[in-house]
Every structure is written in C-alpha cells, then in structure tokens.
C-alpha cells in the first residue's frame, strides 16, 4: 500500500490567531469585539480589505470565543464562496439555520454564549447582486436572533442596502513594524534565525499581506535551513530582480524597437508575471530623476491601461510589448499619436 503522509497544517494555519486579542494591527475592530466578549452585544459586521490582513481570522476567532467548541456547530454557520450561495441557498439554508430557536442567553461552560446565531459570509464580494438582495429580507426577518458577518476584499461589490446595515471595518495592510514583530515571533517558535536586513526585506516584499510573509518564511526555511538571508527570501518571493526591470527600461531608452521586443520576449520566456513587471516598472519610473513629469504621466497612463487589460485576461506578451513601445515613445519624445491613423 502506498505510504500515507501524515497531515499537518502549513504555517499560515498553524499561526492563525485563535483569539481576537491576538489579531495584530486592526485595533479598532479588536476593541469593538473585546467589548462584545464582555457584554455579549454585537452588531452586524462587514470586514473588508486586502488579502492576508486578518479578516477571516477575526471572524472565526470571535465566533469561537463566544460559543466555544461545543456550541460552535449549532450557533455558527460559515458560508464561503466555495459553497453554493445562489438565491435559493440564501433563502433556504440561511433561513433553516436562523429559524431554529437558540433559547435564552446563558453562559455555557465558561463561554458567553449570547442568545443569537452568527452567520459568516466569507468572500461575500463574489455573491451575485440578486443573492445579496435576497439576503436583505432574511437579515430583517431574523435580526433578533442572528448576526451577520460579511467578509470581502472589495466593499464596492457589496450592495449598499446590505453595507448600510452593518458596522464596517476596514482591515489595513499590516505595517512593516507589525509584520516584523509577528515574523520574529514565528521565527522564535520555529527556531529560525533572521538578521534585521532579512526581516526588513520580508516585511517589504509581502506588501502588508501577512499570509504571504508566512508562506515565504516557511518556504525559505525548508529550502535554505534555519538561517535565512534577505536574498533567500527574494528568491522564493517571485519579485522580479531590479536588473531585469532596468534592462527593459534601458532598451526603451535606446529607442530601438527590436531591442525592446527582444527584452520583452526574454522576459516572458523567463516566466515572470507581466502584472508584477507593471508595478515594478511604475516604481522605477516614478523614482527616476531623468524622466520628466510629462513623460512619467504618459507612461503611467499606459501602465494603468495594461494592468486592466491583463486582469481582463489579455495576453502578457502583447500587453508588455505595447507598454514597452509606449514607454519608448515617451522617453524618446516621439509623438503620442500614431502617424498613420485613418
């Protein structure tokens, strides 16, 4: 028989805070929820913000702290985008769950157990507008006995009538100091050594996403052993090396189209993500002293367009080539308009 691998959780799960007070950097929501733990009262909540900032963690932690392991199943319903959340589900599943009475609020084996149920709708931004509309009624009907937690990356995708019924909390990208302290904590637990440069690098390449930082850290630990340098972290992170960005920029400055085309071809063959190049190109251009504001504006405009097109699924090579061509024309002061329009 094939060997069975023991399952154990990746570090991101292992180091997911179990208590609200351990959620870092999101002070406002932690304050409100700490209060909830004392008084038992809780409004409907809407958490929004970029990936890996603690939204799911916070919602699960408060639910566990309120009800404890025994009652959790009967009091908390977690629905995420992997569950079917069409209108029918909203109508039936949530109703069925909400309709069963909870009895009076009495502490139960040390947990507050307030007299309502919690429905966590994670990744709510991927629910259809119709399904969200159907929720409005449900929320009102059962408002006495349920609290909704909506979680999403983009608040603009939540319909206004739902959003306005909730206390809204924006989860901020984690600051570099907070990241560093969390990283150092994990290093201590895992017996890793990171020098201060490596810690700073890890905080900055993760761009406020702690989940990413932890994944990089674990990968680097597996690959390079317990002493990890800044270079090791960059190599697992997929950040494009500065030389590669500079090479493309230099090709654009040269005014030689074929040269730029060759660079773009190479870049694609190396397998780097074009979207990442766009952000790093933007940084390089904005910081450059020898590029005029007008040139910067021309290039930035194009970068924005290409980024949108990539999200739409456009081809990476063609978009990047177009960006390179536009950058070249801007840097070499060629006219913005094409000459042979008809």
């Amino acid at each position, binding site marked *: *028989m094939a*060997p*069975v*691998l*023991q*399952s*154990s*959780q*990746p*570090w*991101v*799960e*292992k180091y997911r805070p179990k208590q609200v007070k351990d959620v870092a950097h999101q002070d406002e929501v932690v304050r409100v929820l700490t209060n909830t733990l004392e008084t038992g009262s809780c409004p409907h909540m809407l958490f929004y913000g970029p*990936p890996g900032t603690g939204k*799911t963690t916070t919602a699960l932690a408060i639910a566990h702290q309120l009800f404890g392991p025994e009652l959790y199943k009967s009091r908390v319903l977690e629905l*995420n*985008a*992997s569950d*079917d959340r*069409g*209108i*029918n*589900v909203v109508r039936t599943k949530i109703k069925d769950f909400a309709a069963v009475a909870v009895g009076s609020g009495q502490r139960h084996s040390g947990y507050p157990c307030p007299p309502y149920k919690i429905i966590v709708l*994670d*990744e709510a931004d*991927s629910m259809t507008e119709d399904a969200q509309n159907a929720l409005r009624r449900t929320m009102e009907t059962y408002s006495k006995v349920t609290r909704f937690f909506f979680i999403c*990356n983009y608040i603009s995708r939540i319909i206004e009538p739902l959003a306005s019924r909730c206390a809204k909390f924006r989860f901020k990208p984690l600051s570099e100091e907070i990241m560093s302290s969390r990283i150092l904590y994990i290093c201590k637990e895992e017996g890793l050594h990171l020098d201060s440069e490596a810690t700073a690098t890890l905080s900055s390449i993760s761009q406020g996403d702690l*989940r*990413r930082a932890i*994944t*990089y850290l674990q*990968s680097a630990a*597996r*690959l390079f052993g317990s002493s990890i340098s800044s270079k090791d972290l960059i190599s697992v*992170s*997929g950040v494009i090396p500065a030389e590669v960005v500079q090479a493309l920029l230099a090709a654009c400055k040269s005014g030689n*189209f*074929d040269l730029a085309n060759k660079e773009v071809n190479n870049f*694609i*063959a190396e*397998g780097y*993500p*074009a*979207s990442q190049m766009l952000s790093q190109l933007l940084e390089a251009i904005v910081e450059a002293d020898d590029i005029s504001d007008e040139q910067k504006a021309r290039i930035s405009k194009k970068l924005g367009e290409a980024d949108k*097109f*990539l999200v*739409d*699924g*456009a*081809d*990476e090579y*063609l978009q990047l*080539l*177009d960006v390179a*061509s*536009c950058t*070249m024309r801007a840097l070499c002061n060629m006219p913005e308009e094409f000459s*042979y*329009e*008809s």
Partner: protein
Amino acid sequence: MLWVDKYRPKTLDQIMVHEEVAQNLKKLVSEQDCPHLLFYGPPGSGKKTLIMALLRQMFGTGAEKVKVENRTWKVDAGSRSIDIELTTLSSANHIELSPGDAGFQDRYIVQEIIKEMAKNRPIDTKGKKGFKVLVLNEVDKLSKEAQHSLRRTMEKYSAYCRLILCCNSSSRVTEAIRSRCLNVRINAPSEEQIVKVLEFIGKKEGLQIPAGFAARIAEKSNRNLRRAILTFETCRVQQYPFTSKQTIPPMDWEEYISEIASDIMKEQSPKRLFQVRGKLYELLINCIPPEIILKRLLYELLRKLDAELKHDVCHWAAYYEHRMRLGQKAIFHLEAFVAKFMSIYKAFLIATFG
C-alpha cells in the same frame, strides 16, 4: 511512445533542466506541512514534468499508477441540477484535472472535488489520516468565480488536501490565490540546455548528430523544450543519417501565417481581406488558438516593417487581442486587426511614395 513521453524524467534527481528547482522541491516536501504550490511558466518549459516527479517524491512509485477516468458530476445549481463531464487522472494519493475544460461550470467542479477529497482521506494501517494532493492544470483559464471559490477552501481543507496549481500566465491568477501558495517560477530552458537534452536523447537512441544540428533545432524551438524534442523526432523520421544541411521543418501553421503576412503586405484591399479571412478560418478550424495566430502574424509583420510602423502595429495587435478576450467570435477581431493593419500600411505607403 513519442520521445517527449519516453524521455520525460521520472524523478527529481533525473531532472536535467531545472536541477536547482528540483532539489529545492525535494527539501520542501521533506516535512508534511508544505504549503500549496503554484507552478507557472511558458509552455513546454517542464512544469508538468516537475510536478509528476514531485508527486513521485512524495508518494513513491504509487503516484505513477494512475487511472484515467471520465467522470460525471451532478451539481445542484440552485433550481436545476446539471451534469458536468470531465476527465480526471488519479492515483491512490492524488487527483489531477483541468477544471477550465468545464467552461462556465468550472466553479462547481472545484467546489465538489475538494470536498469529496476531504471526505475520502487515505488512512494508514494505524488509522491515521493522511492528505491527498489535488493537481489543477491551467488555473489561468479558471473563471474568476471558480478562483474565488478556491480561496477559503484552500485554507479550510489545507490539512486534508494540498493543492498544486499549474498555469502559463500567473497574471491571470487572482492575487488572493497567489497569496495562498508558494509561487514556483519555471523559466523556459535556454538554448544550451535544450541542446543538452537533445544530445542526451540522441545518445540513448544511438544516433549520430552532426555538429551544430541540435543547436539549430534549439534555435527554432523558441525555447520550448517539448517543441524541440518533437522537431528532433520529426527530423529523425524524415531523414537519417542526419546531414548538417538538413532543413529543420517548420510547423505547418507557422508557414501558413507567414504566407498570410506576405499577402497582406502585397495588397491592401477588401478583396484581399476577404481572401485572408478564408485563411484565418482555416487556421481556427485546425484548432490553432486565436491569440497564437495573432502573435505569430505580428511576429511576421514586424520582421517586414519599417521601424516607425512597428509601434502602431504592436499597439493594435495588443488592442485587438484584448477585445478578442472579451468578445466571443475570434474571427471578428483577427480580421479587424488585419483590416487595421492594411489601412495603416496603405496610409504609410501613400505618405511615403505618393
């Protein structure tokens, strides 16, 4: 068996091109808490080969005993239930599939399969539960909805089910998914590396390879290892012993596009556009993906053009490819690009030569 399959390295130690990545992967799975992985890189660069060798590293030769199944999923999509058919490859420890093939329904597949895997975890003799690996190919073709539905699932079931995702274009994979994986970039092999692989195969096959022959194949392969090996085998079938002057056969469709490019350069008229449309259809019918057609056409045109026109043309290629992505009928956009090119080129000719 084709050489591409016959000489696909089976273990991480046999990997010839991405030795370093292979060794790293070995370390990565030395403990059982490895994160989800996302492999990305250009076509024919060796992603699949690495993934298969990795599975073997994790589960031993059992991972190679795969069965191919055509499965039907019944999913309950609100008011009605739909049947989705998909081919899966599975062993005792892993399942592999390309959910993008399910089109708009891909979301249901990824929802169902992971939950199902979590239910059927392998159990060892001591009653301990292990985890399974789910390999998802072409995740860049997954709809946004399907990608969203993976997010929480990847976290929730991470103890039971490890994901290995594979794609060409990581820009098309949402930030939230990328943030949940260790991203492994697989670059296209260099021409020298390709030569090394070809020479290795030649030796195993007992072939005499004239100097510079493998290098010429590598040069024409566009750094695509699969393509290089296929071409090598075609050459072997066409003429052996090899001669140093032997032509490296180009792909039929590439030659055909080169013809289209010449047609367009020679005459810019509605009549010519009509003829070209027929040829484009021909390519599409033969399952050449439309973006590949457009890119190849651009490549041919750029070779023939004056520097000042190149900017215009590459811009319009990017413009129409994007519209093609959003639209439904590729032919409209391919033809629109050709028409646009004709009009620009004609205006250029008139301005230059009167």
